[in-house]
């Protein structure tokens, strides 16, 4: 990898190099500025924010806004803070990610290793699902959830996200498994492994990179989703994003910017964590198959 980098890098002079770094630095600052503002102001007293410079460091550091955002702020009827909604999101995201990833892997496995008449058409239709705007499925989905009797529940949201994510997860796994040698499947068949055994003994253990990609992708999308959360949840199943919106855009009382900032960061922490922990596999996984070795 390092050798490759040396070979492919264009040799540049000191001045060009300095310009490149300067440009990169400007962009990095530009992108990090909002996070900086949120971070700094979430540790300030409200008065300090009102009276002063948004970019200044806090004169008096306080964690009160964080505590308030987490479990005291008035959201909906009760002053519960974001904590219960955080839990709602976890209860929704974890099963949705696991189920959609597993189903995507299974789909990819069947579409590449157990091909059947019309499999490309099926795949094309599933790909099509990636391009359907959220808004279009709202009403049909509401009907389906009502019919199944899981409207307004966390499981209803799980179903919505699994169905919506399936197009993407199938795409990821299909392309990954397309490069997976079919001879391995044949060898396992001769060894006497059946359909599911081949899947979880041979293919799944070799799917690390693409599982990471899919999990990051699905986790980020499901966690950050607002529209489905706002449309299909009840008070007791609202995800974090909806609660954050309710916190920030409530029309009564004082605008507590420091609490809002803290809440927004709280809402972003899980996706950040997932990306930091698994991120190095993300790029590797996206590149898998594109470059040999």
């Amino acid at each position, binding site marked *: 990898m390092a050798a490759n980098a040396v070979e492919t890098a264009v040799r540049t002079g000191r001045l060009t190099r300095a310009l490149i770094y300067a440009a990169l630095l400007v962009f990095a600052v530009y992108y990090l500025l909002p996070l900086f503002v949120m971070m700094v102001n979430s540790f300030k007293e409200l008065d300090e924010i009102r009276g002063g410079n948004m970019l200044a460091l806090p004169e008096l550091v306080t964690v009160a806004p964080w505590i308030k955002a987490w479990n005291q702020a008035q959201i909906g009827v009760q002053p519960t803070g974001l904590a219960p909604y955080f839990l709602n999101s976890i209860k929704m995201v974890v099963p949705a990610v696991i189920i959609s990833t597993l189903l995507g892997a299974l789909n990819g496995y069947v579409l590449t290793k157990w091909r059947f008449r019309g499999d490309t058409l099926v795949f094309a239709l599933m790909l099509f699902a990636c391009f359907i705007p959220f808004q279009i499925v709202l009403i049909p989905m509401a009907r389906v959830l009502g019919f199944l009797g899981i409207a307004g529940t966390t499981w209803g949201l799980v179903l919505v996200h699994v169905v919506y994510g399936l197009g993407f997860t199938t795409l990821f796994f299909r392309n990954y498994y397309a490069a997976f*040698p079919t*001879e*391995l499947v*044949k*060898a*396992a*068949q*001769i*060894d*006497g*492994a059946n359909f599911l*055994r081949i899947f979880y*003994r*041979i293919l799944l*253990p*070799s799917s690390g990179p693409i599982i990471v990609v899919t999990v990051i992708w699905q986790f980020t999308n499901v966690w950050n989703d607002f529209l489905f959360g706002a449309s299909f949840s009840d008070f007791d199943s609202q995800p974090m994003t909806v609660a954050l919106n309710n916190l920030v855009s409530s029309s009564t009382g004082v605008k507590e910017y420091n609490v809002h900032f803290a809440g927004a960061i709280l809402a972003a922490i899980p996706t950040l964590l997932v990306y930091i922990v698994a991120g190095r596999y993300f790029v590797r996984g996206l590149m898998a198959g594109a470059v040999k070795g």
Partner: protein
Amino acid sequence: MSFLVVSGLEKRFGAVEVLKGIDISVPRGGFLVLVGPSGCGKSTLLNTIAGLETVTAGEILIDGARVNELHPSKRDIAMVFQSYALYPNMNVAKNMSFGMEMRGVPRAERQQVVARVASMLQIEDLLHRKPSQLSGGQRQRVAMGRALVRDPKIFLFDEPLSNLDAKLRVEMRTEIQKLHQRLGTTVVYVTHDQIEAMTLATVIAVLKDGVLQQVGSPAEIYNTPANIFVADFMGSPSMNLVPARLDRANGALVVGLERADGSTTMLPLHRPSASVEAFVDRDVILGLRPESIDDTPAADADGAHRHPLEAHVEVTQPTGADTLAMIRLGGREAVARLRAETGARAGERRRFMVDMSKAVLFDPETEERL
């Protein structure tokens, strides 16, 4: 009594006919090599024997029992794949014992069998490595080990040596041969390399476009090819195919080769078959192996079938063991295999001796041997 019988086998993918009525049988302990150019259906045929492909028509018998409907794992076969197909997530020992695990063999016995086969193939040191940590030759050994632990009725090899470099390929070829001699298990082996076919096989089956061209021992295939395709495909350099005319001179059958100056060289046929008679005064194609043309003096022991011939030498190619000479014969380029220390030089006219005892004749229209 044949151990493996393939009869009337047909395979169709949609409208494409890949195998068109294949009949082959191999005795117990035989070494069948399926050979042919790429796309001839040899790998498909192997896959149908393995059970990885279904058949459209026909029957496959192993040890007297019909296996058409049996799952690959129930046919008591083991297969070595071209890419070796080692499970990347398992170490060598796990790779070898996976099949036994699937069949419910107890752990202690699995370890015992793996240890025995590993020592036979000298891969004991590799048992705890992953396939990615092995060289090509080591992977090849492990792939064979995985087949060996099964102790199957038939070994199936799908171009097992084609991913190795030339030197290693020859080594592994010998190794496979020794293994076959030692175990005596029936083998079906697919290759596009005619040298592998000649050296390993007890029975060779030559395929082209899904049609079986000829089945026979290596000597039969080499000396009496059924048609021009087989003659051309087997042997390196391949057989010289020269347009000629069949005639009768002094009561004997002769083939006449046209020379550049318009005159004809007459070569008497050695023990012509009855079917040749019908071609008197007609065009034929004369097939001569390169080693049937040389430039040693006529006074050799079996000089009776050897006849002199003058030809123009275009180039010479010393290979070390012998020297190949490209000569003009009947208006075509032909190859002669000469001694290494031959005095033949490019550009000269030279006297060659043609050994007619191994010459074959083909019908130019049907391309079948006469």
